[in-house]
């Protein structure tokens, strides 16, 4: 590890959120051409925590981990963007982004609050810092052990920004 990486490391640990630049440096972002092909997983899990839940659950064996403390690495070519990792990750750190559509981006994220969103809902879009950056439309919702996996249609260019949604109480 060189000094630059250590400095980087300290930054997200101080802020509690990670910058896209940092994800890129850490090799956690899919390459541009893959992003433009269709839905793909982004695991925002940069530390060597003792966890490997996502790896055995991935139906295409796209997530490689030798030891329990390894950082999960996605083989972007094997990943189909199915969203299973989003549902099982206990750190709520797995997302699927689809930047391939011309009219909008799509983000699939975990949601564990009430009320549960339903297809067609408009929801508030939150970035990694918790700022409200717009409104999106829910296009798909499914559940696994009380974690809801929600796909939202977000304005073009927001696919790498939106990491949370807020559903106003009905």
């Amino acid at each position: 590890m060189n000094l630059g990486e250590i400095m980087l490391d300290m930054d997200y640990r101080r802020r509690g959120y990670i910058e896209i630049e940092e994800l890129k440096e850490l090799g956690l972002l899919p390459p541009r051409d893959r992003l433009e092909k269709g839905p793909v997983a982004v695991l925002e899990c940069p530390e060597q925590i003792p966890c490997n839940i996502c790896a055995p659950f991935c139906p295409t064996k796209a997530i490689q981990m030798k030891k329990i403390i390894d950082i999960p690495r996605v083989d972007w070519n094997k990943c189909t963007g199915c969203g299973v990792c989003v549902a099982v990750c206990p750190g709520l750190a797995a997302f699927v982004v689809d930047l391939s559509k011309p009219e909008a981006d799509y983000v699939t994220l975990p949601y564990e609050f009430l009320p549960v969103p339903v297809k067609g809902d408009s929801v508030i879009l939150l970035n990694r810092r918790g700022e409200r950056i717009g409104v999106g439309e829910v296009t798909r919702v499914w559940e696994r052990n009380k974690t809801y996996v929600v796909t939202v249609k977000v304005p073009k260019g927001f696919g790498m920004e939106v990491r949370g949604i807020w559903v106003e109480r009905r």
Partner: protein
Amino acid sequence: MEAYEGESIAIALYAIGIDVFSWSPKLGRPRGPLCMIGKCSSCFMIVDGVPNTKTCRFPVREGLRVERQRGWTTPPPKPIIDEVESLEIKTDVLIIGGGPAGLEAASILSKSGFNVVIVDEHFKLGGQLLKQTHKFFGSVDLFGGMRGFQIAEAYVKNLLSQPNIRVLTETVVYGVFRGGLVSAVSPSKYYLIKPRAVIAATGAQEKLLEFPNNDLPGVMGAGGAQTIMNEYGVKPGERALVVGSGNVGLIIAYQLLQAGVKVEAIVEILREIGGWFVHAAKIRRYGVPILTGHTINYVVGDSRVEKAVVVAVDEKFNPIAGSEKEYNVDLVLLAIGLEPDARLHAQAGALMKYIPELGGLIPLRTRELETTVRNLYVAGDSSGIEEATTAILEGRIAAYSIMSKYSDGEKAISVEKELDKTLKFLWDEYRSSPLLSRARRGKELATVSKEEMEELRRKYPPPVEFR
């Protein structure tokens, strides 16, 4: 008043908005529940005439009479129960504590044919797992991905199907005596237990922090609030400030949001967030600020918390004048760390050591988790604070270690193999994470070789042993 079956008195009162349970003896200051797991005594009330009853551990029943306590009280005028049944039990293994460490040990030992008695002072088994609604980390074979309370349910279901296990809930083990006898009491029974081996997996208690008015109701352990909302579904307050950004603080903040409580901020005295990044990211994206380099200064309130004042600190952790920020909150949750509860080990005469990395005083032990008291084992948080997965692994190690002593031939070889595999995984894989290096260092300091252990036993002969 009405209450739900399976609730404790403390919860039933909290649910209807009663948070002052007693007044302190000298200054008459209001007291309310703090830890919710029977460790702190701030929930004492007079129950059916009995003063100093821990209401957080007392299940509600039809017709109970509960009174607030004012200062020192007089003992009840007559015995509450006419006759206490006294029982003697001989068993292979006694397990004290029904958290993940004790449950894992109990399930392994009972499956292998050992007679097991498992005792817990709570009226249900599960320990800290009961209040954990979040999904666990780890790997799938260690229950990773399941929610804490689901892990407890799985264990209990499995245990109840074993004929050679005896479960004693609402029963406190209070002492170890000469001849290797262990005493326990429940509200109506007295037990004298003679085990051949003991695993004491008694868990931990939350640490407190000193600041003005920290005794006001509304200042609570993070675990206490977790019990209120996650185990019993009662909202602990409306607006909260969390002190401490370790995993416990970060997780509790998330669970407060889920319960509809507004989390104003998390304050952390260090310059960096204490817990794992993924837990921090989870609450930051819902807009909860984490103020590093800040601490709580004081709280204000009449009979409960109404306001909290936080302050920035300099490099030497001294408050910086003029940097105060005020929050209108009714909850201040302390998540500044846990302290092992190894009082039984100490009382039994096991050699103890103070290890800051492990949160406090713990018994010295071999790699197989045996203390200087022969056949007294330690596992889980009481052996030094880590987390549930390591508690499970330590429970497993203690169980295999006991099994290996009582088996021979093929069986002994296969038990040794399992023991070795678990030790290797725990030390060489799991604890090799740089994020766990502090606890690992602590556990290294607490562990001695078999030869050193014999030397310690010669030097400091323990008063009892089990065999």
